[in-house]
């Protein structure tokens, strides 16, 4: 089995701060992490490799420092890492991103055919959930999103059975390799990686490809030029005209505080009192 796992380096959202005056995001000094959703996909890929044998290649598109995240993926247990980095990729939206990644996967497959591609369900920064389906479509791989578990893989028949989260239930799907899978969060406990992997990762080379190295011939499909969407404006939400009305109550008297609050709510929502009584009577 040859499995490619696409990962993205993202700022650690827990440590993002907004500038109090300019209201812009302060990215400087914010540590980066592997997009948390990608880790569930990486774990699923490693588990399949452990069971069936083969290779897990991690692939990322990003600035040169995204090599850190690839190295981290190696330390968790991935076998090879490829970084796609080029100024032509700057400003890529999801359509342009899926073009670049799909082309790189085709190039990776020219050395060793790819059976499965794993992507994160979504990223925590863009949060679009579109790159995985985009890659599947471009490669002509079967698309299996929101997967809770990969149940069985029959390498001889090249079939795969997964449980997929749908609205109102779980679909059990039988499909074929090659396929693109996105895993649901919480689908497995992500391993920590062995000491041997950590040592290997520290010494390993991350293969770095420019657009040309990856076999991208049509630069007009990359970056801003290849992105049909444009950001018209970025703005702070309108505060409501009036701020919240402060409920007057003594902070030292919880009973008074509660009574004053309930009086306020009942006055503001005339039907509430009757509805609560009706609900309580049921």
């Amino acid at each position, binding site marked *: 089995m040859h499995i490619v796992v696409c990962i993205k380096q993202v700022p650690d959202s827990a440590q993002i701060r907004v500038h109090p005056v300019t209201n812009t995001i302060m990215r400087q000094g914010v540590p980066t992490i592997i997009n948390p959703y990608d880790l569930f996909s990486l774990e699923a890929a490693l588990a399949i490799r452990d069971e069936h044998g083969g290779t897990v290649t991690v692939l990322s598109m990003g600035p040169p420092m995204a090599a850190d995240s690839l190295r981290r993926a190696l330390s968790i247990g991935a076998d090879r890492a490829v970084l796609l980095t080029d100024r032509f990729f700057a400003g890529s939206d999801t359509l342009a991103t899926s073009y670049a990644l799909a082309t790189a996967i085709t190039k990776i497959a020219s050395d060793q055919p790819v059976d499965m591609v794993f992507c994160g369900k979504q990223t925590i920064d863009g949060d679009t959930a579109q790159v995985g389906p985009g890659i599947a479509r471009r490669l002509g791989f079967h698309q299996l999103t929101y997967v809770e578990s990969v149940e069985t893989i029959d390498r001889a028949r090249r079939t795969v059975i997964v449980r997929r989260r749908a609205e109102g239930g779980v679909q059990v799907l039988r499909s074929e390799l090659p396929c693109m899978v996105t895993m649901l969060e919480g689908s497995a406990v992500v391993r920590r990686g062995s000491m041997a992997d950590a040592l290997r990762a520290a010494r390993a080379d991350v293969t770095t490809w420019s657009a040309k190295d990856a076999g991208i011939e049509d630069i007009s499909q990359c970056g801003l030029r290849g992105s049909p969407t444009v*950001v018209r404006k970025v703005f702070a939400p309108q505060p409501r005209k009036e701020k919240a009305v402060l409920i007057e109550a003594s902070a030292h008297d919880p009973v008074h505080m509660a009574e004053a609050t309930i009086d306020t709510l009942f006055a503001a929502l005339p039907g509430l009192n009757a509805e609560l*009584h009706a609900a309580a009577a049921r």
Partner: protein
Amino acid sequence: MSNEAPRSAAKKQLPEHFKAYTGVWVYIELERGQVHSVSWELLGEGRKLADQLKVPLAAVVLGPPDGSARAAVADSFCYGADRAYLMESALLADYRNEPYTRAMTDLVNTHKPEVLLLGATTLGRDLAGSVATTLKTGLTADCTELAIDAERSLAATRPTFGGSLLCTIMTLNVRPQMATIRPRVMAMPQRVDAPVGEVVEVPFDMAEDTIITKVIDFIADSSRDKVQLAYADIVVAGGLGLGNADNLRHVRELARVLGGEWGCSRPLVQKGWAPADRQIGQTGKTIRPKLYIAAGISGAIQHRVGVEGADLILAINTDKAAPILDFAHYALIADAAVALPALTTAFARRLGPAVRLAG
């Protein structure tokens, strides 16, 4: 990489072959005989966009020939559609990416809409990503606001990363302009008995043996363990201001006495204090209750977009300067761990013997 830097220089120069694209389409999510209510919400929103553009609003229904798709078409007219495109085939009985992507892209290529809206559900997101890639068009996910700009383009607004900021995204030079919107973000339109609109029936010409992926089983969620948070009339939620996991019980208690549901901000899920299906906000549930009580929640944009549809918001917070006071209607400046149990006791007393406090 991200393109979330304004490109005001970008100009609209729609290529000639896209100029024929007209009309607003809403994909009606029919699964296992039932239409997801997000589809009606989107028809309500699509109606406004279509009226502004002075074009028809169409519903797109894909489904099996068992009557359910036709029923969905009839309902679409009651929620504001002027026209419906209907594809009926046994191959469309269960949602599968391959046949649905094919059906949708064929419809778009033949009937050329300028706007295509889908619900941001597991189905809608799976389908939208494939359709947009096939059509090589722009897709904006999880929009919180839609509008038509002076040049008749769709302006799709969504929260941007990590800060209290929103961004407006346009697809200027490709059609259709696609967007997904999460359930409960848009208001449910009034259902009216409408005269029947125009039904455009389109044949679906795929053969089952060309479709590789098969649905071999469907395990329905028992409705019992499905949290009804998104549809509750009263929601009480807690944030990091609760201080510890144990204090979440005050949130649950108040919700119970009020006959409502409880929820939380994202950090509580990340800390393992609460399960993921209780999270409210951009990456959790969007709620539209009559009353929302937010205790110890600062009101970050990602939380705000999930609760703005509430009729009345009461914030309980120790900080008068917390951002939530910018959009809450009332605020109680108090320690949540004190105020919540006091409210529970006081409500229980007023509601009388029908409500008993748990021991």
